[in-house]
């Protein structure tokens, strides 16, 4: 048999130390994030959603400052503008809409509705944001550990997820509300009437019940990432567990984490509203979208504007956040179909 005598055809080799290709020197590096940003910018709907969300966020940040400088008055009472005969409903159409009070007044107290909504947005968004961060951090860390370790650790975390998911979350929130808030009021500094204990209670419970879905999703992602060779390469270098988790794997999870974040935010904003309606969470006089809506339901016929504007505001932000989340998801993962 004639064995192959073919010698590999070798091209003129570039000597060691000589640069092979140097065609595009001076072009700035484009990180995957930057490429995703480019794709995001081209998506008009997502950009609109982004502008709306940004508007809300900026407004929420500005609200406490505006209160301080007396531009908006969420607690100032205007009893003179109310119709005492009709049970405290504001005078005039649409809940007393005037140039001074663009969205009208609250019945019974006569506070400016725009001011209350504006300031309430700050509290609602803060609660939703903190709860989201709690859920995302717990979910991501447990998801990475669960997916990477496998075996018994994975099994234990998996059962924790199952138990948490099957827990009657809303009932728990309601039932424990009094004791929980009292507990936090004792631990935390400040007066009894402060909104802080209520807020902490709400954030912790929302966050502690929100992580399982995220943990499951992240675990799935980690299962595929850990099989890639760069993980082996890092282990071969003697990388520690924390380096593997947070330096090698976590940067590859920003896409799902970001998408989950933008999807859990609106869920928590509406959850805050729903809980406010059930009487859990921050109470009047501190405004939140939740407690404004709770109060306004009583006046849905007598003063429709009082109910309509908070609901509209809530709907817009929830829809915008969801669209933003979808847009970010598409931009980060262009191969995924809608």
């Amino acid at each position: 048999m004639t064995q192959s005598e073919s010698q590999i055809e070798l091209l003129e080799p570039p000597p060691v130390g000589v640069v092979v290709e140097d065609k595009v020197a001076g072009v700035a590096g484009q990180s995957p994030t930057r490429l995703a940003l480019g794709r995001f910018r081209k998506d008009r709907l997502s950009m609109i959603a982004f502008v709306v969300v940004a508007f809300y966020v900026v407004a929420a940040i500005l609200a406490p400052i505006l209160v301080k400088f007396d531009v908006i008055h969420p607690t100032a009472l205007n009893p003179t503008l109310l119709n005492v005969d009709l049970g405290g409903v504001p005078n005039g159409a649409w809940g007393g809409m005037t140039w001074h009070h663009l969205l009208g007044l609250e019945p019974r107290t006569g506070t400016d509705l725009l001011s209350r909504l504006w300031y309430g947005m700050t509290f609602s968004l803060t609660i939703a944001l903190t709860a989201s961060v709690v859920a995302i951090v717990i979910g991501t860390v447990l998801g990475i550990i669960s997916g990477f370790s496998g075996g018994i650790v994975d099994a234990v975390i998996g059962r924790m997820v199952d138990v948490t998911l099957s827990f009657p979350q809303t009932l728990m929130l309601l039932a424990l509300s009094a004791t929980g808030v009292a507990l936090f009021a004792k631990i935390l500094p400040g007066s009894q009437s402060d909104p802080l204990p209520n807020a902490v209670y709400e954030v912790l419970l929302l966050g502690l019940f929100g992580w399982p879905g995220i943990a499951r999703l992240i675990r799935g992602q980690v299962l595929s990432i850990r099989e890639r060779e760069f993980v082996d390469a890092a282990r071969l270098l003697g990388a520690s567990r924390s380096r593997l988790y947070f330096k090698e794997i976590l940067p590859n999870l920003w896409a799902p984490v970001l998408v989950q974040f933008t999807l859990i935010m609106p869920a928590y904003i509406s959850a805050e509203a729903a809980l406010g309606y059930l009487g859990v969470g921050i109470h009047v006089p501190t405004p939140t979208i939740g407690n404004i809506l709770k109060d306004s339901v009583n006046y849905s016929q007598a003063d429709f504007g009082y109910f309509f504007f908070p609901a509209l505001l809530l709907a817009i932000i929830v829809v915008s956040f969801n669209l933003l989340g979808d847009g970010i998801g598409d931009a980060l993962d262009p191969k995924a179909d809608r």
Partner: protein
Amino acid sequence: MSISPSESHASEAPAEPKGGVVLGNPASKLDLSRPPILEVDNLQMYFPVRNSGLIRRTVGYVQAVDGVSFQVPAGGSLGLVGESGCGKSTTGRLITRLYKPTAGRIDFDGRNIANYSASQLMPLRREIQMIFQDPATSLNPRHTVGAIVGAPLLIHKVIPKKQVLNRVQELLEVVGLNPEHYNRYPHEFSGGQRQRIGIARALTLQPKLLVADEPVSALDVSIQAQVINLLQDLQREFDIAFLFIAHDLAIVRHFCPEIAVMYLGKIVEISDRETLYNRPNHPYTQALLSAVPDVKQAAIGGRRERIRLEGDVPSPVNPPSGCRFRTRCPIAKEICAKVEPPLLQIGKRHKVACHFAGELGNHPTAPITAGMLGVDDQGNHDPGASPSKDIGNSPGFSDFWFDLKTRTMAKS
């Protein structure tokens, strides 16, 4: 190449390409004066197979690597070839200790690292590194090239943080990349460039042994040659030993003076390049080599006989009895199912695991191993025979071997 006094003993290297232009680097040569830096003895890796029920019982084992022994000389290279799923990559991963072997010895630089713990392995990580097959997945897409190549320095705290960038740029230059590109991301590079980044990372800690797991099989042919040349240059410059895992026989031939052929978790033939490519003695090696397309033959219209193996590689969960290759072997006989052939040394640097070892078309009719194994020609136990101990399956080569022609022991 380092010209050592012992070069005259070295086996003959294949002829340089003739003609006007000298293409590329010459093939690497065997240097017998160097001691082995890596000695693997009877290495085994069994992966448990578990059933998928609630209680996951182990129902069997994938015998991915089953008793492999070889040596890699310091600064030299050993090629490991075989078809997919034969355990080459697993062997590489065992030596880098990404896996913990089920049994066997891995002597690296005089230390048996087979059972080292993670903390014991830490200093060793600097000495054994790996080049991965697919540069698209072996580089973290979210890290810049600088972070990737510099990571080993930071993990092992070799040099102060401030100097990492300088060192990274040096390394990029060594592997032929623009050092100014340290802040770019892997996806901005071509496949060949990415593989160079992977090589730079492996070089960062100045290892003594590099396991190259199919380092060029994901690249274009023209790029393959460049990367192979780079690896040869680096081997010479930094005196790195290579375990070169590949399925491309031409590349292995060029890069490795010694080559081991694996089939289903075992080495079936191990030899120097010349012997293996010109006078293979194992039917599997013969079949493998006959499958290499031959441009010269095609050009003159001649056709070389191709040995077609029938069937598929048997499952490593349940490998055939006796010789693992017998189910597809054209010359298998009764004995092959009963007794496993030892890896018998039949030449100065040539071992083969076959009862009927011989050059193609010249296989003996009676098993050459029967006497040593204490069995008759059909593989049944022979009470009269005196089996010799210690045949085969020790790493390296001995000064004595079994000469096939004279059927006696020979000495160099």
